[in-house]
């Protein structure tokens, strides 16, 4: 099937009224979440997932909604960065450098507009690239043997140490903890109980929504309550509106940022933060002569925002084509698909085209919606910042509990979610990154299944794991990804 007819089929799914409505809701929620401090796309998707399951949304509809929240958040993070000098998302840090000076010069509205346009350009061009790249990439992966997959997953996990914010050892420990948590319950291969601690409730394993809501929603609120969060009222100065001339002036920067962002996004490990930092630096270097970076250069706002959204879309490519998520949020999206008994990966495009292509088509529509939403309505979203914490977070907490309960109908899972919340809070205070835990959790089952298949094929010969050229290269890269942070730590 060629790309265009497949995409046409996808639009048939994405244009159904219910799915259009879900994409629209997702876009609004995503932007709002990007604005609100303390709630990121990861927390929001974790919160929404149980409701999708409880409402029996079909998988393609759920994915359209959750993905819209995900890429919509890329539009929201810039609002606080520009108006308040406070990044709503980690990847919006670079946007503050030129965005806030522009706002102080009374051109906040123009900075918001150019960043919105940049987000749209980056995201849409990346969706185009994704449209054409996903199937070829998936075809490469079809040829992967189980042993190759073992090596690929090991590589993805080892990279966590190299790219995560905290110390590498802690990232690896967290990733392994995620793998262990995924093993709780009856082992599918042998029927043996593992790590259930004699609890009947744990026989079926730990529910992904319980882990994600606990770690990210409940843990985050515990962190927020420690400090009295004060946000000053945002001002959206009138000022001179954005001119077409300025958009054209920024266009080359946006195109470069799209390239950087998409490539970084597709590569495993590195995410939107790296992409926005890299594209900002690149623009600064390229335009040293005629730029006023740091004092309010339009390109300094356009580039990181474009790269941020391009990388977000790029992150989805390995998740859909290989089944290997490149970031925490795509790991949660992968978890969502697994809850629907859909295994993303090479066969997804053939077996469930409505899911894969419906999602891709919906992203064209969603990004157009986001552009339309964000240009005129940016003031309304900015006003969300004036909602005090004591109004917002009790509701978020009630939503978390309702979600866990709706998905599992069990009070035990509520307590388990609180336990994970406390764990997430403590881990954050000890600088243990949480993203590797979800990544390990969603990859654990896949890793062991492939290991088991590889061992069956080779009749238990462990050397079969490094038997193919692909696996040898991947293992060599894994070793490098482990040794590099260790060498860096030793030199310290």
């Amino acid at each position: 099937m060629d790309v265009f007819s497949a995409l046409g089929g996808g639009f048939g799914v994405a244009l159904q009224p219910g799915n259009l409505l879900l994409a629209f809701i997702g876009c609004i929620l995503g932007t709002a979440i990007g604005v609100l401090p303390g709630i990121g796309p990861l927390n929001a998707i974790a919160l929404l997932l149980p409701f999708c399951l409880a409402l029996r949304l079909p998988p393609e509809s759920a994915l359209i909604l959750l993905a819209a929240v995900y890429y919509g958040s890329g539009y929201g993070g810039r609002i606080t960065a520009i108006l308040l000098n406070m990044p709503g998302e980690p990847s919006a840090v670079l946007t503050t450098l030129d965005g806030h000076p522009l706002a102080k010069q009374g051109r906040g509205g123009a900075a918001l507009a150019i960043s919105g346009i940049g987000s749209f350009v980056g995201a849409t061009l990346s969706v185009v690239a994704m449209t054409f790249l996903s199937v070829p990439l998936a075809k490469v992966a079809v040829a992967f043997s189980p042993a190759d997959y073992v090596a690929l997953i090991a590589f993805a996990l080892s990279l966590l140490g190299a790219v995560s914010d905290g110390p590498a050892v802690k990232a690896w420990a967290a990733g392994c903890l995620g793998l262990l948590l995924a093993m709780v319950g009856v082992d599918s291969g042998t029927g043996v109980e593992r790590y259930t601690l004699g609890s009947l409730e744990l026989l079926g394993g730990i529910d992904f929504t319980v882990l994600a809501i606990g770690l990210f929603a409940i843990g985050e609120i515990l962190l927020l309550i420690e400090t009295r969060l004060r946000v000053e009222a945002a001002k959206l100065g009138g000022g001179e509106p954005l001119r077409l001339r300025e958009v054209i002036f920024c266009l080359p920067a946006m195109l470069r940022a799209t390239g950087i962002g998409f490539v970084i996004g597709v590569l495993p490990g590195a995410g939107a933060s790296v992409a926005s930092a890299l594209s900002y630096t690149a623009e600064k270097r390229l335009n040293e002569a005629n730029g006023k970076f740091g004092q309010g250069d339009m390109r300094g706002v356009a580039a990181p925002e474009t790269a941020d959204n391009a990388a977000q879309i790029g992150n989805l490519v390995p998740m859909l084509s290989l089944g290997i998520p490149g970031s925490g949020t795509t790991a949660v999206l992968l978890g969502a698909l697994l809850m629907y008994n859909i295994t993303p990966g090479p066969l997804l495009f053939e077996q469930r085209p409505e899911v894969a292509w419906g999602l891709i088509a919906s992203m064209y529509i969603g990004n157009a919606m986001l552009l339309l939403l964000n240009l005129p309505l940016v003031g309304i979203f900015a006003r969300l910042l004036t909602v005090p914490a004591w109004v917002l977070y009790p509701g978020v907490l009630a939503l978390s509990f309702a979600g866990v309960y709706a998905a599992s109908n069990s009070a035990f899972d509520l307590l388990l979610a609180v336990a994970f919340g406390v764990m997430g809070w403590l881990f954050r205070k000890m600088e243990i990154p949480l993203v590797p835990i979800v990544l390990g959790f969603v990859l654990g089952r896949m890793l062991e299944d492939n290991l088991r298949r590889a061992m069956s094929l080779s009749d238990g010969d462990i050397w079969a794991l490094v038997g193919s050229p692909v696996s040898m290269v991947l293992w060599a890269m894994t070793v490098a990804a482990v040794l590099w942070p260790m060498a860096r730590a030793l030199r310290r």
Partner: protein
Amino acid sequence: MIADRILGLALIALGLGAAWSAMQLQVPFAADPLGPSPFPTTVALVIALCGLALLLRPMHGFAWPERALAPPLLVVAMVGYALLMVPLGFLVSSALMATAVALLFGARIVASGVLGVTTAVALWLLFDKLLDLPLPRGILSL
């Protein structure tokens, strides 16, 4: 420093415990060459190694909370909420929890109460009436 050393010890204990537990697993008949033990054992040993590395080269301290009392109180409120949701029902337990959490976030008593009831009713209307999701009804059989 000390926090990282304690963390290192905890990880070693967890890793060794998990590895030992995995090695005890017995399969009645050997169907596949891998069995249930090697994978968890390997993963657990990696955790123990990470713990050892942290014990030998600790890096960071523990960031003590600005308001030391608030997080434990919030945990108490959440555990209470989890235990009371089924007997009291979503509406009543959510109103109580939301009021308590708003207080913890520094709101005044009256405002917290109003917010608690409003939040509970709004979410209950959303879930029960609009989305038709099953939530515990408890003492109010609406």
